[in-house]
Every structure is written in structure tokens, then in C-alpha cells.
């Protein structure tokens, strides 16, 4: 070191979070004595370093002691690195000359042996001190924020987010995989606990989104690739061929009326009803244009038919239409891709798919929907028999080690809703089989009480089996639900006509690929991970990418809407600022040392490294570099350096961490 740095060391108690295990006083005294040679001129410990008083302490020392470096031993940099960098900035020190080392998450919270934890804290601190010596003053990189936003998923969460941003006057691309936006909510009949009609509250929002001048609606489309970084993403979107020219189509409906080919509708009607080969998902679909399902269309299979084309008054049918690939530039992205319903077939003892009158929750939603296959009549598979006894099974596929350990959050309320609808429409007797009744939410508990008063039966127990094997005359022709009533400890056999399985929510089957495509990660059970479970539920670790609705975890409509709005608000704030500051962590190739060996050329997945044939040297494009440092580690000539994580910084940190391992005589040398 040519000139000796003046380093200030600050050890945080974090109340008792750290001080309860680590002897913070001993650590700061040790640092003051043993790290003198590294340039430590002052070492303090303080109750809460992140408090304004703590920060002022640092700023005061910078001014009075002329500190050139600051090391704070406190919590994880992921929590407070920015806090202390700003504190240094306030004190007139370049924020990047501050190092925050974690003696909480990585020490006091995970260890019980106080002596060992204190020794470890010393090591971690001395690592930070050795490292900070080699920090360089840096300036954050400022990149402009493109005002447009990409919203992936046209369910209620995505629609809400899109509308919030669009209404604020900024462009939005709303991408939906299905032919229409609306998502699961469009399939429901009533919504709990108020029982107002789902379509009635959703449709206006869908229409708004469809007509909004700031919203480009891309249905029947999927995002295939995302490049770039916060402020400047480029999304590659495949707009699948509808075989219908949107410009000419009026949505009159003649085509699907005339279409001779009936197809079981497994998506919207959950297999309960039929659609044509040319179809709109449902009457209120947005956009109104139909699509031709090429897998089932007779023309595409046999090469003849073209009924739709013949009858279309505006010649909008276009069999030759091809997929379009669009590249859209956006500044931020919201993922609201929702959930898949748990496949009840997996619980074979419940007989779904084998026993005709076992229904899934989504099937029941369609059945109870006036616009649905049965016109709202609740009947058995035969389409006419009205059930006299109905059993509703809660927690299907949820809270179960064999399937999903988590609670799907909506099943209790959904089951109560079903029970109410059954009684209201059929007067049938209803049995709810539950593990616990969970009704956290405005008006939810009240709804539960209403059901109790309506005389619905509640049996606390997990249904073991559903079968049609009758043992008693009374069971003939019925479905028998085998269950232990855990309140009375009685084994029950309950004969019913109809069973509704209140299936849980699962991450989309392709959630992992989607996460990878957008550079974020999934939790063990497959839901996308938010930046902080409490304080930052809609952001992700990747700048500029947000999540909303069930893609983040099971939740009901109000929460999904809230998250959509929240994500939008976060993004609007960013757009307003017009630019975003990025960590100045970048790789640089030093031309005079580069031998042009091209080892690094296959190291960069962001194509930030280019090779100049003329000069026979490689170069890093800082705009594309993401700062991972892989090329820095790969360069055999040592010709690549990485700011923020330089070899000097890391190697010195290793020295510092191992200081205590060095024989005493050397420590004071």
C-alpha cells in the first residue's frame, strides 16, 4: 500500500440480535488493537448502527477523523448495504469505500457458542477491513428507464397492473397465452364472501384493458425470450396465428355458429362443455376475435371444409396466417402468470375420473355458472339428476406431505361458497370435510357463521376414501365417503350423491422455465421468489422484474388485485425517475495485457465480450456486461479486472478471514 488508509470500524449490537451472542465490545476492542497495521484508526460498537444516530456516528468520524474507509459489522448487505453507503455519502465519502460485513445472518443468528461466534465475528470483520483497503471510489451506472412495461399474464392481477400503469399514461404490453384475457376469475360464477357475480365485476376491467389506448393487447401469445436489463429489456413475443384477420373481424360469431366441428373445451369449460374448432373462449372474451384451433379444425386436418370462410361476412378468415414474432422494448416487467389447479386424479382414493359424480372445484364453478354448460343447474354427470346429498372435501392436494405442504389459502372460502350455492339451488344436504377452517379476511368469518346457520354439516377429518362399494342398503347407488370425525373419534361412512373436491393451487407447470427465462428463481415448491417476504413482496432479486398474483403464491382475488396494483405503483415510481442507478460492477479487459487467446470469448452468456480480429484483442461491452465476473476468473493472462470484486479485494479478504489462523508472532508484525 503506497498511502495508508484511515479506516473506521463500527460493530452493531442490533439490540440483542447480535450482542446477545457476539461480544461486540470485545470485537471492536480487538479490531482497534490488532488491525492497526491495516489502518484501523477507530473502532466503535453501537446499539443500532442503522439508526439515524448510528449513521450520524459514522458521518461524524468521517469528518473529524478524516476516515478514508468504513467497515460496518452488522446485518446482511442485502438488507442495509445501501443504508451505510448512503451514510458514508452523507459524510462526504464515496459510498463504495464502505464495506458491510454480516455478523448477524452469518454469525449471531446461526450460532449458539458465544466464544466461537465472537471469534468468528473478529475473523469476518478483519476480512472486511483487509478487503476495504482495496476498494476504489466508484460511481453508480445510470441507465435510462424505457417508459413501456411488459405485463405477462392476463388474469385479474395482470389486468389490474396493466390498467394502473396505462391510466397513469404509460404504454403497456399485456401478453396472454389464451385467446382471451380474464384468467381463472372469468370461469367463476360467484366470488366469496359477497357472492357478487364474478363476470359482472371482471368484464368491465377486461373491456377497459381491451380498449385502453395505452395497452397493446397480445393474446394467444407467449414471451419466448428476454434480453437486456432493467430500464432496457427487449422481449421477444410469439403472436400465434389466429387464422383470423383481426382488422376485418367484427366478432359477429357466424363462423363458430357455422363451424361443424365440436371440440371438448378442456380449458375454459374444464371439460364440462363443448366449443367449436373456431371459437372464442367465452361470450365476453376480450378481444372478441375468435381463433381457429388448428389441431381440431377439419380443414387443417383433411384440407376441406372452410365453412367459416364461406360464411364470414367480412372475409376475415385467413387459413394461411402465420405466427408473428414481435420484439418490444420495455423498461420493466411484471410476471402475473397465475397458477394451475391441482390435478385431483393424483389422489386415486378420491376416485376423480373414475367415479362419475366426483367433481373438481373448477368443474363445479362452471356448472354453477349461468353461462356454463348446465346453465347454472347443479346436476350429476347424467345432466339431469339433482343431488340430494353433497360432500365437499377441503384441502385436496394441499397441507399434505404427499402433494403440497402449503395451504392453498382459498379452498376453505371456496368450499363454503360451494356449500351455500348447493343449498341455495338444490336444497341438498351438504357435508364439509375439513382439517381446519381458515377464514382470515374481511367478511370471511362472518360468511362461515352464515353457513353454520344454514345448517351445513361440518365434519372435522381428512377423507380417507371415496368409493361406490356399498355395504348397506342405504349406500346402494351412492358414493360413500370414508372419514374419521376427529372431534368424536368415530369412523364414519357418509353416503352422498355428489362429491366436490376443493382442489388446491399449484405453480404453473412451466413456472421454472418462465423463471429462468426472466432470470429469477423459484422457491422449493415452485412459486416465484419475491425480494423480501414481508418488506418487498412484489419485487424480485432481478432489478426491473416484478411479480403479482398467484405466481408468487396462493392467494385470493382481493390480494391478487392488491399485488397487481402494488407492482404497478413500484414501476410507475421508477418510470417517473426516468433513469435507474445500477451497481457499477463491470469487467474490463486491459488491452496491453490481452493476448487475444480468446479463452474468454465463450465465457459470456450476455455476448458482452467481442474479439477484434484486427487488433487481436478481446473487449468487454460495459452496456451488456452484467458483472458476474466469470471472464475475470477465466482469463489466463490475468488481463481482465472486475470492479467491486477485484482479485486484490478477494485475496485480501481471504487473508483477513484467516488472520486468526496465523501463528501469533505474525499477527503483530
Amino acid at each position, binding site marked *: 500500500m503506497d498511502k495508508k488508509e484511515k479506516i473506521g470500524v463500527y460493530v452493531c449490537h442490533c439490540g440483542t440480535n447480535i450482542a446477545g451472542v457476539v461480544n461486540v465490545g470485545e470485537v471492536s476492542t480487538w479490531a482497534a488493537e490488532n488491525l492497526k497495521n491495516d489502518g484501523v484508526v477507530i473502532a466503535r460498537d453501537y446499539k443500532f448502527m442503522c439508526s439515524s444516530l448510528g449513521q450520524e456516528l459514522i458521518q461524524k468520524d468521517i469528518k473529524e477523523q478524516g476516515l478514508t474507509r468504513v467497515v460496518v459489522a452488522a446485518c446482511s448487505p442485502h438488507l442495509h448495504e445501501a443504508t451505510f453507503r448512503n451514510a458514508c455519502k452523507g459524510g462526504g465519502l464515496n459510498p463504495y469505500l464502505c464495506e458491510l460485513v454480516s455478523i448477524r445472518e452469518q454469525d449471531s443468528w446461526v450460532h449458539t457458542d458465544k466464544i466461537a461466534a465472537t471469534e468468528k465475528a473478529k475473523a469476518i470483520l478483519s476480512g472486511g477491513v483487509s478487503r476495504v483497503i482495496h476498494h476504489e471510489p466508484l460511481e453508480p451506472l445510470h441507465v435510462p428507464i424505457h417508459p413501456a412495461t411488459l405485463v405477462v399474464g392476463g388474469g385479474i392481477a395482470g389486468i389490474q397492473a396493466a390498467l394502473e400503469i396505462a391510466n397513469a399514461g404509460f404504454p403497456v404490453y399485456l401478453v396472454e397465452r389464451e385467446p382471451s384475457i380474464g384468467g381463472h376469475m372469468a370461469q367463476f360464477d360467484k366470488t366469496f364472501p359477497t357472492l357478487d357475480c364474478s363476470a359482472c365485476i371482471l368484464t368491465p376491467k377486461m373491456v377497459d384493458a381491451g380498449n385502453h389506448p395505452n395497452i397493446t393487447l397480445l393474446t394467444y401469445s407467449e414471451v419466448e425470450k428476454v434480453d437486456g436489463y432493467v430500464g432496457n429489456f427487449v422481449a421477444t413475443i410469439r403472436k400465434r396465428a389466429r387464422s383470423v384477420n383481426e382488422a376485418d373481424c367484427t366478432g359477429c360469431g357466424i363462423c363458430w355458429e357455422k363451424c361443424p366441428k365440436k371440440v371438448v373445451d378442456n380449458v375454459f369449460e374444464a371439460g364440462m362443455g363443448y366449443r367449436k374448432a373456431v371459437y372464442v373462449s367465452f361470450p365476453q372474451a376480450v378481444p372478441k376475435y375468435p381463433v381457429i384451433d388448428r389441431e381440431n379444425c377439419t380443414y387443417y386436418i383433411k384440407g376441406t371444409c372452410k365453412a367459416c370462410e364461406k360464411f364470414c361476412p367480412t372475409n376475415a378468415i385467413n387459413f394461411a396466417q402465420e405466427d408473428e414474432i414481435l420484439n418490444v422494448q420495455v423498461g420493466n416487467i411484471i410476471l402475473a402468470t397465475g397458477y394451475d389447479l391441482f390435478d385431483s386424479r393424483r389422489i386415486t382414493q378420491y376416485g376423480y375420473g373414475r367415479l362419475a359424480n366426483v367433481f373438481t372445484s373448477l368443474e363445479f364453478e362452471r356448472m354453477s355458472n349461468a353461462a356454463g354448460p348446465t346453465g347454472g343447474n347443479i346436476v350429476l354427470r347424467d345432466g339431469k339428476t339433482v343431488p340430494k346429498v353433497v360432500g365437499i372435501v377441503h384441502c385436496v392436494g394441499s397441507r399434505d406431505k404427499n402433494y403440497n405442504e402449503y395451504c392453498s389459502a382459498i379452498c376453505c372460502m371456496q368450499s363454503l361458497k360451494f356449500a351455500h350455492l348447493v343449498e341455495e339451488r338444490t336444497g341438498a344436504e351438504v357435508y364439509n370435510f375439513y382439517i381446519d377452517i381458515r377464514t382470515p379476511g374481511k367478511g370471511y368469518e362472518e360468511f362461515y357463521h352464515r353457513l353454520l346457520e344454514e345448517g351445513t354439516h361440518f365434519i372435522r377429518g381428512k377423507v380417507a376414501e371415496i368409493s361406490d362399494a356399498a355395504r348397506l342398503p342405504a349406500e346402494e347407488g351412492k358414493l360413500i365417503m370414508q372419514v374419521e370425525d376427529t372431534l368424536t373419534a368415530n369412523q364414519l361412512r357418509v353416503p352422498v350423491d355428489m362429491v366436490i373436491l376443493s382442489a388446491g393451487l399449484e405453480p404453473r407447470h412451466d413456472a421454472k422455465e418462465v423463471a429462468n427465462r426472466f432470470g429469477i428463481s423459484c422457491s422449493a415448491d415452485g412459486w416465484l421468489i419475491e425480494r423480501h417476504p414481508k418488506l418487498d413482496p412484489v419485487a424480485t432479486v432481478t432489478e426491473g422484474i416484478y411479480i403479482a398474483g398467484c405466481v408468487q403464491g396462493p392467494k385470493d382475488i382481493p390480494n391478487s388485485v392488491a399485488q397487481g396494483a402494488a407492482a404497478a405503483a413500484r414501476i410507475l415510481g421508477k418510470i417517473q425517475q426516468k433513469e435507474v442507478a445500477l451497481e457499477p460492477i463491470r469487467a474490463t479487459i486491459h488491452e*496491453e*495485457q*490481452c*493476448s*487475444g*487467446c*480468446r*479463452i*474468454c*470469448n*465463450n*465465457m459470456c452468456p450476455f455476448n458482452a465480450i467481442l*474479439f477484434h480480429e484486427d487488433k*487481436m484483442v478481446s473487449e468487454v461491452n460495459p452496456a451488456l456486461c452484467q458483472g458476474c465476473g466469470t471472464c475475470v*476468473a*477465466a*482469463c*489466463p*493472462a*490475468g*488481463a481482465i479486472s472486475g470492479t467491486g470484486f477485484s*482479485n486484490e479485494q478477494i*485475496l485480501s479478504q481471504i487473508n483477513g478471514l484467516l488472520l486468526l489462523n496465523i501463528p501469533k508472532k505474525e499477527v503483530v508484525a
Partner: protein
Amino acid sequence: MSKPKFAMYWAASCGGCEIAVLNIHEKILDVDAAFEVVFWPVAMDAKYKDVEAMQDGEITLCLFNGGMRNDENEHIAKLLRRKSKIMVAFGSCACEGCIPGLANFRPIKELVDTAFSTISTDNPENIRPQTSYSMPEGAITIPTLNPMLKTLDQVVDVDYYMPGCPPESHQIAAVVDLVIAALNGKAELPPKGATIGAGNSTVCDECQRKRNVKLIKEFGRIQFTEADPELCLLEQGIPCNGIATRSGCNARCPSVGAQCIGCYGPAEGVVDYGARLIAGFASVIDSDDPVEIDKILDGLVDPAGQFYRFNLAGSLLRASKSAQKG
């Protein structure tokens, strides 16, 4: 005024450095003209007495080649350090241990045992050399071998490093010119600790072979490879160390179809030469599957030997565990 004094000494080296200096041919006369050669055992009868009698720092320039294999090497290194103003670690042995440093893979005892039990050795009593042995006429002694071979700067303070096994004569000539110019105040000497007589980049910088993005499914061996004379050897699977080896030799070996074996050591600022090769060779492996990667790595029959061929004694680890116990 008397001429500046010049010394050249060989410790644990092969003598190739001396030959390389003789190979500056006519320039040797410039050295003779510019310096008073006070100590150069290979070329002249030395005046050790005078060296001992000299003032500290009286020798202006000392080119010291050879590693520290025994206590005698260290003794002279320390003496010459005291007597010399500019101490140059000259050649791979002094800089980083060179091939003799490969001895640091094994305990010194094992080295001695092997030498005295080869098939042609007639040694029924299994004798080993003794550092002090009393003959009827009196005790006679030989130096004690160091358990690990050391580099010059692991024993004394070094001003400049001149790498190469041996250093290229044109580089030696250039350095001689520089020093002479500097003595006449016509040039600046580089900062202490600098590497002189070599480039800052790696051998590829001077190699004329064509190169592409490197992705390798199999490493080869030179005797089995009919190498394309135009194309980068490493791309053809031949374990060439040129990617990590300091430039300055004009890529001699690759230019005649032989892989670079690394005699010029690490490039400027590199902490551990072998680590650079580990990173470099790992980077060209064209697979993400651990099993396949291991299969590809089997093609490198002696990775540590290859990556630390000249550099083991000067590396971060310096020697294998067994050598340390030795």
C-alpha cells in the same frame, strides 16, 4: 573513474542461463567494455576473497540464476545480496524454481532413496550420502539439501526478475543495453520488483497461429496429433501452456509445432500461474455434464505437473504436502 562491477552466479541451475548470456555473442564485448566483471565462475577464475572483502552494495549488477536447493546456495545468495546494488533473479530457476522445483512434489528423502537404488546402482549396504562423514584422514562434509527447493526471493530480497528457461538472448542483450544506458543516465531503470526482459501479456500475443473461440471435447497428446501447422495448438487439444505464460520468447515452441511448456512463468500481476491454467483449461471444456467433463479431463494425464512445470516452488502452495513432511 572505475567501471561499475558486474557479477553473475549460478546456484541450483543447469548452466543454460550462462550459455544464454554467452549467446548474446558480440554483445559480450560490450559487457566487458562497460563493466568490470568481478565474479563469473563459468567464464573466469573468480576472486571470492575480493567479493567477501567488498563494501556492501559495491557490485552494481548481479545476475543470479539458480534456485535454493541447499544451504550453500542460500549462503552465497545472501552474500551476493549484501554486496550487490541491483540483484536480478535471472532465469526461471531463480524466479520460480523451474524444472528442479518439480522435486517439491515429493519428500527429499524419497528423491535420495530413488537415486541410490536404481537398477544400475550397486549399493548392497544401501548407503546414503552423509553431510559429514569421517574418513580415516578426517571428517569431510557436503552441503545439506533443503527439504523444499526455494526461489531466490524466498531467501533474499530481489530487485528485478528476468524470466525464461533460459532467458532469450535478444532479451538479455536488450536488458544489457538498458542497464548500460541507465548507468550513463540515458535511461530510467524500471521500478523495483519489476519483471524485465519479457512482455506483459502471454505467449498467444506473439504466436502467429490462427485462433477461434475455443471449445474442446477431448485433450490430445502431441505424439498422437497430426497438428494443423496454422491453427492454435490448444484448439487442437494439445495442452499448450501459452495462454497463461508470459510473452517475450516470440512464441518459440508453438511456432515450431511444440506446445508451450511455460518456462517464462506467469504474466504481469498474476498471483498463481497454475491457477490461471486451471481456469484457462477448464474454460475450453465443451460440456456441462460432470461425468463427461471428468472424461474430458482424463485427457490431461498430469495436470499439476503440467500447470506447475516451472512454477511449483514459486506457487502459492510451493510444494506438495508430502514434500513438506519430507
